[in-house]
């Protein structure tokens, strides 16, 4: 069984909610990513979303844009990200890892090579921001062949027909973007999210994660009341950006542990 499903089933059985932090691979330095991943797990992360940096991150706000720029400057590439996951897997065989990014680096590598490498190094899912279901046929075939879960985004603007369509294709979990906007924006509307949930649940049997705009334990707790998983990205990336290199892992762990505690309350 895919690690994502095992993890989420297990949490459900315990009545707990999943915490899914996001970091950009290669930020702030190449040799910090694997320690950060382990740190996230120690602080209570259930699944790791690992960002693959792209030169033109159109769906991201300034914080993750800067992380991408730093990572690319450090020489990060999709190939390098896959090697990092292999390194991480040497000491962590259980925590699911989902790669998140834009389609072009995968197109350049080729979907078959990408999917088979993912399986080899222990990547469990892939979220390609700019590949909607309409354009994902080829991608799917390859991901499916290697049991890599295609993770999809749904948005406040997504109508019911599309929700139904995505429900049929998605594996692992579905990621509901909690606001109209780029990552890191601050205009989260809890009531609107709660209103959308029944429509999502009507079609989606998979766990639903909510992300974009979640910045603290308190908000995470409120999201956890209505969703199955909480995704936190920009706030963690900010922690990385503002930390001295030697303190970065400790600071991120401290922040994530705080959110974990709030979630488990």
């Amino acid at each position, binding site marked *: 069984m895919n690690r994502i499903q095992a993890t989420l089933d297990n949490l459900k059985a315990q009545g707990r909610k999943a915490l899914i932090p996001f970091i950009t691979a290669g930020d702030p330095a190449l040799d910090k990513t694997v320690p950060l991943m382990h740190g996230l797990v120690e602080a209570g992360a259930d699944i790791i979303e690992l960002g693959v940096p*792209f*030169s*033109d*991150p*159109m*769906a991201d*706000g300034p914080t993750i*844009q800067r992380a991408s*720029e730093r990572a*690319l400057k450090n020489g990060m*590439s*999709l*190939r390098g990200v896959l090697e990092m996951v292999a390194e991480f897997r040497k000491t962590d065989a259980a925590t699911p890892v989902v790669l998140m990014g*834009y*389609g*072009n*680096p*995968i*197109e*350049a*590598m080729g979907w078959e090579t990408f999917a088979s490498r993912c399986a080899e190094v222990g990547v469990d899912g892939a979220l390609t*921001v*700019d*590949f*909607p279901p*309409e*354009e994902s046929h080829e991608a799917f075939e390859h991901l499916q062949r290697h049991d890599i879960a295609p993770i*999809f*985004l*749904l*948005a*406040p*603007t*997504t*109508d019911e027909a*599309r929700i139904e369509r995505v429900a049929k294709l998605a594996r692992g979990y579905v990621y509901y*973007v909690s606001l*109209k*906007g*780029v990552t890191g*924006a601050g205009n989260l509307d809890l009531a609107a999210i709660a209103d959308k949930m029944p429509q999502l649940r009507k079609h989606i049997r998979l766990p639903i994660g909510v992300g974009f705009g979640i910045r603290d334990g308190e908000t995470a707790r409120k999201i956890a009341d209505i969703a199955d998983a909480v995704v936190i990205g920009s706030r963690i990336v900010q922690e990385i950006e503002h930390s001295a290199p030697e303190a970065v892992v400790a600071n991120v762990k401290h922040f994530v542990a705080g959110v974990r505690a709030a979630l488990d309350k």
Partner: protein
Amino acid sequence: MRLRTLTYSYPDQSGHFGPYGGIYMAETLIPAVEELRREYLRYRDDPEFKAEFAYELKHYVGRPSPIYHAKRLSEHLGGAQIYLKREDLNHTGAHKVNNAIGQALLAKRMGKKRVIAETGAGMHGVATATVAARFGMECIVYMGADDIQRQAPNVFRMKLLGATVVPVESGSKTLKDACNEAIRDWVTNVETTFYIFGTAAGPHPYPMMVRDFQCVIGNEAKVQMPELIGRQPDAVIACVGGGSNAIGLFHPYIEETSVAIIGVEAGGHGVATGKHAAPLTGDAKVGVLHGNKVYLMQDENGQIIETHSISAGLDYPGVGPEHCLLKDMGRAQYVAANDDEALAAFDALCRYEGIIPALESSHALAHAMKIAPGMAKDKVLLVNLSGRGDKDMNTVARIKGITL
């Protein structure tokens, strides 16, 4: 081998031109592009919409734009006759306004009161600011910080017209980064905002819609050329940034297989140097950016690379999907003109014809000047003079070492 007959009908229902095009967008925007597609298809053949568009083009833009025989330049070159389709004479000084009006009319029907645009050379930004003023809409234009330097007069024009110009400091600070920022705005304000996209690229329906609006160029030319010379030209030539002025001229000629079609990309320092903006000529790999699958300048890891061109309007790593298909089909030929060739063409048109062309258009002219001398005097090349050069005074002065 030259095709004899050709029936051509792209894009398909899903917005693909063969393997190119599509709707590669983040989920938040998919419903928006879907709504746009629906609304565009609803109005595309609506007599009232078409009549209003035609009225604006005639009375506001000043169409039809004339075709002018550049006789002195042709004589000087000693070969084929060069004719110019004078898009530079349009209101706002370039072909961009044709498309901006079409999209603004659609925005009006969709009840959107806020329009956004990206711009490179500033011509599309000026066109959008102009139509926003004309129709009473709020207008935000995203422009790379480097381009703001290069095209200062256009920045001032947009401000005079009431638009807000937002400098984009990310990435290479040019057109592609302005696109990224406009897309971010659209994601955030999707319900109130219409994105007036400036070229025949991006997610479906933009490549089709922008082409349709720009086809007025080629449709006019097909009537004007027989009036002028009793037949169609031997070749039609246009510069290719994203490809809107080019597809507007080319599309009506696609099935006229006796007419050669030549797109001219920005060769920058030379295609061989790697410092250019010529994805079709430079054998770029196919990739995905800004909502469509196209030939795209990128490194081996799929990261988009910085482009180089003297002209801000051509300084873009991709190209519209229809040009990608026309290249693969062999129906159009794509070549590049370097910075210095474009500058020489710019000078020549100033001196021989008293017309100051945009640096973008100078690329198309440069290629015509390259091939004309080797052709018979009764051959005819129709060059799309996509815009006028007033905006480029600072750039050209700097290159010539002159302080204004």
